[in-house]
């Protein structure tokens, strides 16, 4: 297996982009990534999307997008693992370059959610349709049940959940691509509309259109490109029972721990060595459980850690400097790729007002559904 690098990144603004279609979004992000990498061609591509079928009635999207990206007939594959699709796309690109089959691969993700579909129904198809969604439970509802379990088991408070949203909006304020560039108070979160008790509207990531893409390549191509070198030190993936009710501990997300263990091992590193984290905060409770599973904080202590400001930009362990899904927006298929872009920009020193000083190692954690799948990448900036 060969070493693998990321030499180009591109993304659209995230938001309600009424004037852009799915193909417009993906092509815009991809052309940006190609330009950023300064390459003149790609040899194949992977597209992550959760459900262009349910959101816009379009399947076969990898072929469509390769066509609109200036069709040269290259292999183009759509991968899906619900909200983890964008991370999986990067992982497939990683495997293809590592194998030696290709030297330059584009991997990205896209979702066009604001085009008239029943978004709550579409998102719930990430759960077990026959034994969860059938009974009317929604995607926020599943995380609400995790939240209640975590609160009852560890004493995590409603205020601590709100602090995750406050922090991530504070970060998103500094991100020009974020959907919500506005600060919010703890009080605003706790008074926002109830969505699935105990989760309120400002505990939830928004409905977003957007796309993100990266250029993955061999060491040879990376060195010739003259671009800053960011190495993919690990790319790991794990699954779990799809249905939340099947899992022994409802206050945990075992697929995250499983993928993390493999990633730390492959990268020969540990949580303490990582300078910056992007994690999958589709709901405030998700960020809390994930930082426990990643080993950033002790189990059950995540609420207190966030309240103490440890995971804030400038804190000891900055988490979601991009604003996270919460403030940056969550076009489900694009999210995993966009997280990796934030890490690349941090490692390149290109993160502007969001820059973590001397960031050398970064981790991006992306998951599907209520944790039925998880994909983790560890990246290293090589100067």
């Amino acid at each position: 297996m060969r070493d693998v690098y990321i030499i180009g990144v591109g993304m659209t603004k995230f938001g309600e982009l009424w004037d852009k279609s799915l193909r417009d979004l993906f092509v815009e992000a991809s052309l940006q990534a190609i330009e950023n990498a300064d390459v003149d061609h790609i040899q194949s591509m992977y597209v992550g999307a959760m459900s262009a079928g349910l959101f816009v009635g379009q399947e076969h999207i990898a072929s469509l997008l390769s066509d609109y990206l200036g069709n040269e007939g290259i292999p183009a594959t759509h991968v899906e693992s619900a909200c983890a699709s964008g991370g999986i796309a990067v992982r497939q690109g990683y495997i293809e370059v590592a194998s030696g089959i290709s030297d330059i691969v584009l991997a990205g993700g896209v979702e066009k959610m604001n085009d008239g579909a029943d978004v709550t129904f579409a998102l719930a198809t990430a759960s077990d349709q026959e034994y969860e969604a059938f009974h009317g439970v929604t995607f926020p509802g599943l995380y609400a049940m995790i939240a209640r379990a975590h609160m009852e088991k560890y004493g995590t408070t409603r205020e601590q959940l709100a602090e995750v949203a406050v922090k991530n909006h504070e970060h998103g304020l500094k991100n020009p691509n974020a959907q919500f560039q506005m600060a919010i108070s703890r009080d605003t979160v706790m008074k926002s509309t109830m969505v699935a008790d105990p989760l309120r509207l400002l505990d939830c990531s928004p409905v977003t259109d957007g796309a993100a893409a990266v250029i993955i390549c061999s060491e040879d191509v990376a060195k010739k490109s003259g671009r800053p070198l960011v190495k993919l030190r690990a790319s790991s993936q794990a699954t779990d029972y799809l249905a939340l009710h099947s899992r022994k501990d409802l206050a945990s997300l075992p697929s995250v721990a499983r993928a993390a263990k493999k990633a730390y091992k492959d990268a020969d590193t540990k949580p303490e060595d990582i300078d910056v984290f992007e994690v999958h905060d589709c709901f405030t409770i998700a960020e809390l459980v994930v930082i426990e599973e990643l080993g950033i904080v002790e189990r059950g202590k995540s609420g207190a850690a966030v309240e103490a400001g440890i995971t804030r930009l400038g804190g000891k362990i900055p988490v979601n400097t991009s604003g996270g899904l919460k403030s940056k927006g969550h076009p489900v298929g694009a999210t995993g790729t966009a997280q990796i872009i934030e890490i690349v920009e941090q490692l390149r020193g290109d993160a502007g007002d969001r820059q973590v000083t001397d960031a050398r190692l970064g981790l991006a954690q992306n998951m599907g559904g209520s944790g039925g799948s998880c994909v983790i990448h560890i990246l290293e900036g090589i100067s």
Partner: protein
Amino acid sequence: MIVPKYTREIPQRFRLEAEKCTKCGYIAFPPRLICPECGQKSFQMIQLQPEGKILTYTIIHVAADAFSTQTPFAVAIIETKEGARMTAQVVDCTLEKIETGKDVKLMLRCIQREGKAGILQYGYKAILSR
């Protein structure tokens, strides 16, 4: 058109049929072809007692279109006495009464209308035991 799907699901949805792994005792609800705990393929059919307790729950205020006229409604994860786990609505009570740990009984109820013809789909719902 969806009648066959409906018929196929009767054993689980109407009769609460589960399977018990003959090796490790894992309760599979719905039934499975292979045990996720020990990898064996031998199961014994069991019928679940329609009784269990609430492990966690939520009150849904924003629902998919098919359920939007029912909001707010409660959904819980329930563990039966045998150890089977399921997601189900908790009905027939004021929502404030619902708490983790409370005992419930499982009842056959209408869940939703499905498909263009709006065929009624039935299945289990939970009610508080007292």
